C-alpha cells in the first residue's frame, strides 16, 4: 500500500472522533508497525527506497546547509558526516560561531581576526517560516536504529495543506491539526 494511502487511511480511521489527533497518530503507528514488520520480513529493500536511514515516507528533507537534514536536539544544523555544528552557510564552526577549516582551525581575515560569524538558525523553527511564510515547529518524533546508534526522526509541522515537495501533507508525528511539511533527524549517541 503506498505510504500516502496508508496515511490517509490512518486519518480516515480517526475521522469524526473527538480525539482525532490522538487516534490518527495511534492508527498511523499501528499501520507503521504492521508495515514495518512486513518490511523486516521482506528485508531492507523498502527502507532503502527513501532518502535517508529511518525515514519511511516520501516527505522530503527540510532545506539544510549541507544537504542531509541532520540537526542537534534543538534543531540547529549539524554536518551529516561527523555531527559538527555548521552555520547557515554550511561551514563548520567553533563554539563561538567562527568558521573553521576542515582541520578545525579558525579561518582568519587579512587583519588576522577570525572570519566573521554568519547566522546559525534553527531549520524548522526559524528558516522554514522565513523562507515559506508560515509558522512551523517540531511536534513529535520517532526513533529508529541507524548506523549503530539511535536516530530521532523529527517532523517539521505546520498548519499547511501541502508538503515541501508539493504533495498533500500528512499528519505524521504532528499534533493539533498541524501536518508534516518536511523532515529532519537528530542522531543520538545511544548504541543500538
Amino acid at each position: 500500500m503506498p505510504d500516502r494511502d496508508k496515511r490517509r487511511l490512518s486519518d480516515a480511521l480517526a475521522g469524526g472522533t473527538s480525539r482525532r489527533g490522538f487516534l490518527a497518530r495511534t492508527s498511523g503507528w499501528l499501520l507503521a508497525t504492521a508495515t514495518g514488520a512486513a518490511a523486516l520480513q521482506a528485508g531492507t529493500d523498502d527502507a532503502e527506497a527513501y532518502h535517508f536511514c529511518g525515514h519511511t515516507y516520501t516527505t522530503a528533507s527540510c532545506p539544510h546547509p549541507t544537504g542531509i537534514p541532520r540537526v542537534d536536539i534543538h534543531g540547529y544544523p549539524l554536518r551529516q558526516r561527523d555531527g559538527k555544528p555548521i552555520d547557515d552557510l554550511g561551514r563548520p564552526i567553533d563554539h563561538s560561531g567562527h568558521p573553521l577549516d576542515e582541520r578545525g582551525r579558525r579561518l582568519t581575515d587579512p587583519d588576522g581576526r577570525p572570519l566573521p560569524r554568519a547566522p546559525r538558525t534553527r531549520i524548522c523553527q526559524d528558516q522554514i517560516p522565513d523562507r515559506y511564510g508560515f509558522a512551523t515547529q517540531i511536534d513529535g518524533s520517532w526513533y529508529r536504529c541507524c548506523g549503530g546508534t539511535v536516530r530521532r526522526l523529527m517532523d517539521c509541522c505546520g498548519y499547511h495543506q501541502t508538503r515541501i515537495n508539493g504533495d498533500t501533507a500528512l499528519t505524521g508525528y504532528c499534533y493539533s491539526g498541524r501536518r508534516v511539511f518536511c523532515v529532519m533527524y537528530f542522531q543520538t549517541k545511544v548504541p543500538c
Partner: protein
Amino acid sequence: MSATAAILLLTAFVAGVTGAWSPCGFSVVETIGSRRAHLGGRAIAVSCATFALGALVGGAVTFTVLAALGALLGGDGDGALVVAATVALSCAFGELFGVRIVPQIRRQVPEAWRRTMPLSLAVGLYGLLLGLGFTTFVLTLAVWALAGIAVAVGDPLVGLSIGLAFGAGRALPVVLMAPRYATLGQRLEQAMAERPALLRRLRLADGALLAVVAVAFLASGSASAAQRPQLVTADGTDPSRAGSLLAYERTDHGAAVLVDGDAIAQRPADNIAIGGRYIATRLGTALTVQDRRSGATIAQFDAPGATQLAVSDRWLVWRADRRGGGDRLMALPLPVAQAVPAAGVARVVAGAGRRETIDRPALSGDHLAYAATTRGLSAIVIANLATQRRRRVLATRGGQLSQPALDGGRLLYVQSSYCSQRLQVVRTRTLRSPRTLLRIGANAHRDEGHDHGYTTQGSEPSRCPHGTPHRTSALLWTSALAGRTAYVTLLRPGAGDAAPHARIVRIRF
C-alpha cells in the same frame, strides 16, 4: 560600448527610419521640400536642422522618461534582462511575420502649423512630436519593443541613448530627401509610396535586429550589464575609491597602496580608506585623517582596537572591538576643530548588541552603511549620521549579507548562502531587483543530500539550483563602489600557519 548596446542603438535607429513610412513622415518631407523654390536652400537647411533637433529631443525625452519610470519600478535587476528579452522577441516575431501594428496611435501632427508658423519652427515642433514616438502613427512594433526595453532595463542613460538613436533615425529620411526634393526626394517618395516591399524589408530588418537584441540580452546581459571581472591587483584587500584615486592595503601588512592612473604610491598603514577629499589611515592604534590634495593632517588620535575605516567629506568612521564581545562603529565628524580630538568627540553609531559582528563600514556623505550579523539575522543598515536616523535596508535569515559599499544612490553588497556568493548592486531608493555582478560558489562542502545506498527522492529541497558554481575556498570580501564600477576582494582566508591571500577585481556594470 558593448555589442548589445550597439545592436540596441542600431535597432532604435532603424525603427526611427521605418517611421518615415507614416502619414506624418511623408508630410514633413513634402512640407520642407516643396518650399525650396520659395524660401531658398538656406532656409531648407535650417528647417532640416530644426526638424532633426526636434526629433532628437523628442526621442530623448520619451525613452529617458520610460527608463526613469523603469528605475522607479525597480528595474535594473537580473529579471529585467528576461523581461527585456521577452519583449524584444515577441515584437521581433510580429515584425518578421508582418503583423498589424497593435496598438496603433491614429493621430497626426497638426497640419495648421505649416501655415501659421515659420517653417523652421513648425517643422522643429513636428520633429519633436515625431521623435516622441507615441504622438503619431507608429509603423513598426520595434517602437513598442524599445519602449518596453527602456522600462525593463531601467537605466536612464540607456533610455537616452535609445531615444537619440531613434530620433536620428526619424530625422535621416527627412534630412536626406527634403533638400533634394525635386530630384532624389520625389524619386524616393514615389518608391516609398508605391513599393510596399521597402517597408516590408525594413520591418524584417527591425524584426531581425530585435531578435538579435533578445538573444544578446539573454546571452550577455543588458546594454549596461556587468562586464567580466578584471584583476586590479593580485595582492591587496579593502579597496576604496574617490574620484580617480584607488586605495587598498597589501596583504603582507604595513603598506597601503594609492593608485591614480599610472601613478602608484605606497605609505605605511595597516588600514586605509579614501572618501571625499580625505585619506584616513590606521597604523597600529593611531588613526590619521589627511587632506588628499594638500597632505595636511586634519585629525590624528589613538583608537585602540580599531580595524576598519571609512571616510567622507563629513565623517570618519571606524570599527572597534566591543567590550564583552562583538564589534561597534565609532563616528567622528569632520573636519575637527582641533588637530587631536578628545576621545569623547567620537560617538558610537552601531554595535550596541553583544555578539553583533559588524563588517567594514562604508560612507557616502552623511550616509553610513554597515552589515551587522547576529546569531539569528544578517542585515545591512544605512544610517544618516547627521540626523541619526537609520533603517535596516536588507535582512536575511539562512544566509549572510556583508561588505556593503555606497555610491551614487546604489548599494553594493555580498549575499552569501549555502549554495553561492553573489556580489549584488541595488538602488537604495527602491531596494528592489538587485543585479548580480559576480557569482562564485559557496565555501561549504556539500553532501549528496541522501544517505549512501538510499534513493535521491526527498533530497530536492536542499539541492542548489542548476547552474550553481562549484564550491570554492575564496570568499567575496570587502568591496568598493564608484559610479558604475564595483571592486571586490577575493579572499582565501588564513588558517593556522597558512597566511591569508587576497586579490581585488573590478567589475564595470
